[in-house]
């Protein structure tokens, strides 16, 4: 089943490009740990989800690009075309001449209704190209005007028009020290609207990803390109094909369905986060070895202590033992550090995945695995 991606605003479009690039590179990566047959099955599954076929064999991303001004979209289209290996559909973009001016109201009440027809038509065309639709993945930022305002409007319309399709919104939480002055207004307005119309909100915080770039990837001068690549890496590990433990070696067909089923048990709690391990630069990868036990231990502690990356984890935080009264020495502060998640999903990727013992953590629901190239691991708490 396929996912149609809607990229909104400068942020959405820049991230969207990196996501498709990462997905494509991952599925076409030479050399690997599994057989040719498995490789081909993986590639085919990934392709079905995110790319459609073009006449001359170049895969076209299943995406609709929307922005209120032209610069970013033209940049994105040319970057994709330059790579030569995949590209965006020529007619899958919609732009206007003047941006939204960081004004949520502009995006939602002016641009939205004005361009509703055109944008929904573009999405319709993309949907028709799919054999079966799993749902929509909408990438947007919360601080700006187009991504936030128009994003909220589009999500609402998708709910009206495609009520049976799932929608996951990928929202970017702005920097705490401010990148847009009215970001608080825009963010609150967006969240309140999305909460009603979206099925799941996958949150990425600029601050957290920035720290990952600085500490784990060791990048000296971090650009938005670096940040987006880390983001794309994390998203890729969530969306690439997986198969369930019980089942055979056939890949699961409904990515969004799986995620929602496991992570959104109650419609009121739909904010998701991603934790990825290991996250490091390509250079360091050659010098590291991993074991499942070690990775899982780190990941579990990351979850418990609410850390976003594998460095600087607070190992002192422990979950309270069920049924027993809290120890007298535990201060109130310690308790608030403990992450209470409603649902978790672990995705394991890599060699000997079946030997990994995920343990008996209480809230753990399901485990999806994939025998493929990179060793990835993520947990998504609700």
């Amino acid at each position, binding site marked *: 089943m396929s996912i149609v991606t809607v990229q909104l605003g400068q942020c959405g479009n820049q991230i969207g490009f990196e996501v498709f690039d990462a997905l494509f590179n991952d599925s076409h990566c030479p050399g690997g740990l599994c057989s040719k047959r498995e490789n081909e099955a993986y590639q085919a599954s990934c392709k079905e989800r995110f790319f459609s076929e073009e006449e001359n064999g170049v895969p076209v991303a299943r995406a609709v690009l929307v922005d209120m*001004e*032209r610069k970013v979209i033209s940049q994105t289209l040319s970057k994709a075309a330059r790579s030569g290996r995949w590209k965006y559909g020529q007619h899958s973009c919609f732009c206007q001449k*003047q941006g939204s001016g960081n004004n949520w109201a502009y995006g939602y009440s002016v641009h939205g209704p004005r361009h509703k027809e055109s944008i929904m038509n573009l999405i319709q065309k993309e949907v028709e190209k799919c054999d079966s639709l799993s749902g929509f993945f909408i990438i947007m930022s919360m601080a700006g005007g187009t991504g936030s305002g128009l994003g909220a409007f589009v999500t609402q319309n998708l709910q009206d028009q495609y009520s049976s399709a799932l929608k996951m919104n990928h929202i970017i939480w702005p920097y705490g020290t401010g990148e847009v002055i009215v970001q608080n207004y825009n963010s609150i307005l967006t969240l309140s609207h999305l909460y009603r119309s979206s099925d799941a909100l996958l949150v990425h915080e600029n601050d957290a990803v920035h720290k990952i770039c600085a500490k784990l990837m060791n990048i000296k001068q971090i650009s938005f390109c670096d940040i987006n690549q880390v983001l794309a890496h994390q998203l890729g590990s969530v969306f690439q094909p997986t198969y369930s433990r019980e089942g055979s070696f056939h890949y699961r067909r409904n990515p969004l369905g799986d995620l929602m089923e496991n992570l959104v048990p109650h419609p009121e709690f739909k904010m998701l986060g991603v934790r990825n391990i290991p996250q490091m630069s390509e250079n360091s990868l050659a010098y590291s070895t991993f074991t499942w036990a070690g990775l899982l231990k780190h990941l579990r502690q990351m979850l418990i202590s609410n850390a976003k990356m594998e460095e600087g984890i607070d190992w002192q935080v422990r979950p309270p033992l069920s049924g027993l009264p809290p120890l007298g020495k535990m201060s109130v502060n310690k308790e608030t550090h403990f992450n209470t998640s409603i649902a978790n999903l672990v995705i394991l990727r890599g060699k000997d995945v079946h030997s990994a013992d995920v343990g008996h953590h209480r809230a753990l629901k399901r485990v999806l695995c994939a025998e493929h190239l990179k060793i990835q691991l993520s947990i998504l708490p609700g």
Partner: protein
Amino acid sequence: MTQSVVVQVGQCGNQIGCCFWDLALREHAAVNKKGIYDEAISSFFRNVDTRVVGDGGNISKGKICSLKARAVLIDMEEGVVNEILQGPLRDVFDSKQLITDISGSGNNWAVGHKVFGSLYQEKILEKLRKSAEHCDCLQCFFIIHSMGGGTGSGLGTFLLKVLKDEFPEVYRFVTSIYPSGEDDVITSPYNSILAMKELNEHADCVLPIDNQSLFDIISKIDLMMNSGKLGAAIKPKSLVTSSTGVFKKRQEKPFDAMNNIVANLLLNLTSSARFEGSLNMDLNEIIMNLVPFPQLHYLVSSLTPLYTLADVNIPPRRLDQMFSDAFSKDHQLIRADPKHSLYLACALMVRGNVQISDLRRNIERLKPSLQFVSWNQEGWKTSLCSVPPVGHSHSLLALANNTCVKPTFIDLRERFIRLYKKKAHLHHYLQIEGMEESCFTEAVSSLSALIQEYNQLDATKSMPVEDLPRLNIAM
């Protein structure tokens, strides 16, 4: 891509405008090597086939044929405009986009505003409409004028009302040159205060600049160049004051260097809207973010670096120095000390090879020394443009909505009151039809109200941030 039209009024406005167009051409020539008329150029220039007579010559794509500036030149005496039309830029201006008269306004705001305003209203409207028609999507009018004279101040502010009525959706950015302490025009306080009232009511955003600060910046650069410090060879093209790329010992025209600074300001302001970058900022975003209340739309600006040393390797320390300089009172384009006053909002527009981590690091470093208003502690707006200005590898424009503009206004009011108490020179104004004493009193009370607003904000400076009661979520 949107277009902007520049309206230059009066001698000062036209001279600055001239420097602006010169620099704009250089910038686009440096960036656009292939000579294709692209969207970046179209924001300020039209591509015209000069062989076609009349209006049909506009070419929207393809190679550059002949560039015409999207400008309207207005002056009530012919000298300055004629000089421009005979100078090196004569082909850039459309000869139909001029409005001139012969006698000038005599440093009298009333003549500029009331007499010439009513006389030329139709003609002005016609020229503005024409330039708007040539635009695909007009976003902004840039008005350049001085406050102390007669034409720039009077007719320039008359224009604002016309623009507001005729094009209500188009933003009006005004670059105003305020008179310095030792200004040579005696009636400049009257002219400025009368003009301020119009700016208060009809402008969307004002960038106040004063001659003394520009002069101080020039002196600083001169000092730097003549001191002959070891390793301090400056790249000649990189001076924020240079226009021709050749370093001249003495500028031919006395105000050229200062005008170039203002021209650079306008270019940097629009750079993120014209060129690509990883975090774009359009002109409407400037107004959206930096103007919290409609009355408080005066932005203090500063440009750094003022020059680039010929040393190619720029260690991060120099980059950080650029950020620190942007907040020092020596680099502001108006007499102001933003560090010791209250910030309502601040925008940092970076050009060149600067990434988000550099920006973040510097914001975090400088934040503790700056005071932000209690309801907007994270009042930063940032933008990154990948194209640096000509001759530099990176540059920073800081726009601050800060209460440090208050002293300039208070000063202006003092000088006004000193003259007005004696009713000196008043009869020149009152003899113009439509002018009465009430115009003066209204103008000064409008300014006083503005100063009062800033005072109120300043009073909240030392108050602790109020902690509002929050809802408790039941677990």
